[in-house]
């Protein structure tokens, strides 16, 4: 298969997934409001002391993103039927192209999720605007991509398993921990004037490792799911 054909398949898979999500509307109509409610409820549970809220705000944002984003990332592959998976196989779609296309679509949805919740976090928690805040845009992008890779990988591992809706979040949660720690630590580093490079390298390395594992295991996982 040529590179052009591979990327055409990636594009078509992503386009189809986004169109399906656009019609189902679960991200915007269900997941985002629930994420917003979670951000709203947490201050009520832990108190309204402004300094503390400002300090924990960014951590809460990434925590909520990971918890609810998990549902976004996993939803795409969880809704596939066996007939749909078999159709892709018979159309000669490279399973790696399916993995990449699906991950890109999820990453875009997660970015939308983050872009909506970020201003809400600023309003509710009022975290200080730190020097070098544009780095956070890169972090938001890397978290979305990393979480999308984790969710798609979990979806592929559990495809065809009857208990997949329980099993997949259990797989996603531990793999998301480095994303949560490094994204929160980048903000802390910027706030305290510490180096953020190790955490950015960790995020990049996580994304790269997940992408490589996802692409390398796509074919055997697709075969075992049949």
């Amino acid at each position, binding site marked *: *298969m040529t590179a052009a054909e591979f990327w*055409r*398949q990636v594009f*078509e898979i992503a386009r*189809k997934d986004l*169109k*399906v999500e656009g*019609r*189902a509307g679960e991200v915007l109509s269900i997941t985002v409001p629930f994420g917003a409610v979670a951000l709203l409820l947490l201050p009520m549970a832990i108190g309204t002391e402004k300094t503390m809220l400002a300090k924990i705000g960014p951590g809460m944002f990434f925590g909520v993103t990971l918890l609810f984003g998990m549902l976004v990332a996993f939803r795409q592959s969880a809704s596939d*039927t*066996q*007939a*749909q998976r*078999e*159709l892709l*196989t*018979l*159309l*000669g*779609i*490279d399973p790696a192209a399916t993995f990449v296309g699906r991950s890109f679509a999820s990453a875009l949805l997660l970015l939308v999720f983050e872009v909506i919740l970020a201003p809400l976090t600023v309003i509710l928690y009022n975290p200080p605007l730190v020097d070098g805040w544009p780095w956070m845009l890169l972090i938001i992008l890397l978290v979305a991509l990393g979480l999308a890779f984790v969710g798609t990988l979990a979806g592929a591992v559990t495809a065809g398993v009857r208990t997949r809706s329980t099993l997949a979040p259990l797989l996603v949660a531990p793999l998301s921990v480095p994303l949560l720690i490094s994204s929160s630590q980048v903000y802390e580093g910027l706030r305290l004037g510490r180096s953020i490079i190790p955490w950015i390298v960790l995020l990049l390395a996580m994304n790269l490792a997940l992408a490589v594992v996802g692409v390398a295991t796509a074919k055997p996982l697709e*075969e075992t799911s*049949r």
Partner: protein
Amino acid sequence: MTEALVQLEGVGVRFGRITVLRDVDLRVAAGEGVGIVGPNGSGKSTLLRVLATLLQPTDGHGTVLGAPLGKDTPPAVRRRISLIGHQPALYGELTLEENLGFVARLLGRSHDDVVKTLSKVGLGGALDRRADHSSHGMQRRVEFARVLMTRPDLLLLDEAHAGLDRHAAALVEATVATVKRRGGSVILVSHEPDRMLPLVERIYEIVDGTTVEGVPEP
């Protein structure tokens, strides 16, 4: 002797301790239609999935469109196989046109082809209808439109006539005839042999997990 597009010898499929198929021998020549009958649960659909290269047999060997049965069936061979199973392979949230358009773009076909093919199967007036808002018969028609678009050399139909009206049943017959005329093979599975008889040259019955060749009655 005509070239065999499908050749199975001693093929068996086991799921754990359960033997679904055993010692299945099957030969289907180019341009030939073959029917497979048997009661519910006899392994007909399992056999179709083996032939579609979606399920690896646990015993025996064989070839489908020249490729040996096994894990590494080349994508180019799989693209020459079309399977219409029990469950429609459609995305419910997409329209009928978008469903076929997805396939068409992956095959490098134009949007005009999509519209023409859907019109050919009688769905010209329902292009914008969502698949999950369409009847079973309409969903089946989209699947036959996909067959016309992919031009398979091996067409596998699982209970193709189930739930179809007279017009849609005529579409099944026309599609089978088209594939055979082009030199492809068609394998139909059904528990109602009467409807498939006019479409096939030979019939196999699955008895106790294995195939027994029969003669279609006129």
